[in-house]
């Protein structure tokens, strides 16, 4: 349903955007009125509401109406809005989606405005602004925030297992025996009789606490599931990023990593894939069912918000190439090509990307803003709340990040890889089956 809708949206919108481009707006006249802004994360709503209020103070002629929609419905309603002409003027955009939106001429190129208003794109954390330059060389979004991956752990479980927090900071990993990362995971796994995963007599079919939580198979990107260790082997999703045209799921290094990951399930150190359906990995962690969860920095608020659970955050393990790795993802604000309030929308997007607004976001300690200076302020704000976020910021400081894979056909790639990865993680197919899937994926780019 969603896919067919997308296709129709694409077709219908061509015509729409053509007519939208033709007009060309006059500057002073259209920087007035109310513009609609959409986002999905309700936790950031208070911060952006304040930005909107401040913005209207600076530009009394422009009002901003913010609408929040849950992630599940966000993209389908947005696509509908493109077709029906009711899409928001400005909306929060995701790297995994914007390639297709740009291709379908849904997004307004911001180059002219960036040049005219002297937006300094080098002030953002390295690489973030470049992600939003499309294949046609045009800029389709101004960065708002970024995220990396870290290991959330249950402090009480660590203490009772005799593992120190310093040990957690120096974990190593390799695809053969899993390194100290697997040792720790095994030791933190406890069966119903109280036997640990690395002790004789461990009953892997009756596990009480899993060493590592599982979110799902990870589909094509494995953002929080497997990309943080698979990429320490020198493997990367695509031949180049952004805008690669070959995926590398057939690489033996990658398949060895996936083999190890699936092995955690068969050893009883990680829950079975079917138990994750409809469940939240974070809630399962809070219920005391897993000791370590690899998750994104946008989840800090949720993990530290649980009552009665002491949570620590460690960096992801160091891999065979001697470095850690984390996917570097970033959101941006984009303008719908069909907007009737182009100039006002540009002003709002520039404001969202400015230090004024990003400092407000930083002060709420929910996510890391895209601007370097604001990013540091967010780290301070987290610290003031008693949360140490260096596990996330170090990836950026030490340049151990790699970019979220941006290509064409992302929806189709996901459609092929999701069941394939699920089959591997649930043990129904060997990791070598991914070679064939990779051929299907690469055929999309011919």
């Amino acid at each position: 349903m969603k896919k067919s809708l997308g296709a129709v949206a694409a077709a219908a919108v061509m015509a729409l955007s053509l007519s939208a481009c033709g007009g060309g707006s006059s500057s002073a006249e259209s920087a007035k009125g109310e513009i609609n802004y959409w986002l999905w994360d309700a936790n950031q709503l208070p911060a952006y509401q304040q930005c909107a209020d401040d913005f209207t103070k600076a530009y009394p002629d422009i009002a901003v109406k913010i609408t929040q929609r849950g992630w599940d419905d966000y993209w389908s309603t947005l696509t509908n809005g493109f077709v029906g002409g009711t899409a928001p003027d400005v909306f929060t955009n995701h790297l995994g989606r914007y390639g297709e939106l740009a291709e379908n001429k849904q997004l307004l190129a911001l180059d002219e405005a960036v040049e005219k208003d002297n937006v300094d794109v080098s002030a953002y954390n390295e690489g973030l602004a470049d992600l939003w330059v499309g294949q046609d060389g045009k800029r389709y979004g101004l960065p708002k925030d970024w995220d990396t991956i870290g290991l959330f752990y249950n402090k009480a479980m660590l203490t009772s297992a005799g593992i120190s927090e310093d040990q957690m900071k120096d974990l190593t990993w390799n695809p053969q025996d899993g390194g100290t990362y697997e040792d720790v995971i095994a030791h933190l796994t406890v069966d119903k009789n109280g036997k640990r995963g690395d002790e004789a007599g461990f009953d892997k079919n009756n596990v009480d606490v899993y060493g590592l939580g599982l979110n799902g198979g990870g589909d094509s990107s494995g953002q929080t599931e497997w990309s943080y260790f698979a990429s320490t082997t020198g493997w990367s999703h695509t031949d180049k990023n952004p805008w690669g045209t070959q995926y590398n799921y057939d690489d033996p290094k990658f398949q060895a990593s996936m083999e190890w990951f699936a092995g955690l399930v068969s050893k009883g150190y990680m829950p079975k894939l079917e138990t994750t359906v409809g469940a939240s990995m974070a809630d399962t962690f809070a219920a005391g069912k897993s000791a370590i969860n690899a998750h994104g920095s946008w989840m800090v608020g949720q993990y530290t918000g649980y009552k009665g659970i002491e949570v620590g955050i460690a960096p992801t393990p160091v891999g065979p190439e001697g470095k850690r790795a984390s996917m570097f993802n970033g959101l941006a604000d984009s303008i719908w090509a069909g907007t009737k309030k182009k100039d006002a929308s540009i002003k709002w997007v520039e404001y969202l990307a400015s230090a004024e607004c990003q400092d407000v976001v930083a002060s709420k300690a929910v996510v890391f803003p895209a601007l370097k200076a604001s990013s540091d302020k967010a780290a301070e704000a987290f610290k003031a709340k008693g949360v140490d976020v260096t596990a996330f910021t170090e990836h950026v400081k030490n340049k151990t990040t790699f970019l979220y894979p941006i290509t064409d056909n992302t929806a189709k790639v996901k459609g092929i890889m999701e069941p394939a990865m699920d089959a591997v993680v649930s043990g129904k197919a060997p990791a070598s089956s991914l070679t064939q899937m990779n051929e299907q994926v690469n055929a999309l780019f011919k």
Partner: protein
Amino acid sequence: MSTTISRTAAVAPARRRRPFNARRAGAWALLLLAIAVSVLPFLWVLRTALSTNSSLASQSASLLPADFTWGAFLRVFGLQSPADAIAEGGSGAAIDFWLYLRNSVIFSSITTAGAVFFSAMAAYAFARLRWRGRNTVFSLFLGTMLVPPIFTALPNFLLIKNLDLLNTMLGMVLPYVFMTPFAIFFLRQFFLNMSREVEEAAMLDGAKHLRIFFQIVLPNAAAPLATLALLTFIGQWNEYFWPLLVGSQDDVRVLQVGLGVFKSQSPQGSPDWSGLMAATLVSALPVLILFAAFGKKIVNSIGFSGIK
């Protein structure tokens, strides 16, 4: 007074005749189990609605609310500030409850009234009028019940878009308001059983079909019409997908779609369980009230077999 006495007199010996044996105990146990199975989920919903989100996961075993709070209900009615909501581990999003409730009532009422009335007319034509190809048309009509609604969603959406009716109440009710094959089938079976004599008598008195329909058939079919109306209303009240596609603007957004803000906010984030459960309870209330008021009628009408 006398009736009470005679009733107890009648009941008492009956009790003595059926001693409490193993079979009765088994029946009671089964009954209690059935009650528990149907009531416990509601209690669990209520318990979750009264819990603080951030304590839910760590106190998942307790039957009592985890860290009791009315916060989730305040959130549903938009009485809690986003900052307070987030502090309780909830969603910072607010829903415009009363506006969505109004929209839900309008949407469900219009579609119910329209569908029942037009279906009754069609059913009358299928049951009481004689015309060529009647049975063929009727089988075709029944055949459409086999088409899953998802197949028609996209064409319907494009039609509504081309009519420029997106985000209007008219666009939302159009696919439902005229008739549904099930309603026609349901009413036709009932009309078939109505006596011909009354109708023929009315015809002798000079009544035409319109008059027969309005003055004889409709009043006599009050019970099945009420049943159908109630079932349609409940169905429409719970409708999600079409209102989500067509009515995404606030002024036509219905409650079921509005509840979506309590679902997962960010990818991989947990839903605001307390808020979602509180909102679900509140949104189910109107239907529960309707059911309490008209439930008896449904049972009666299903047992009712027409004028003999």
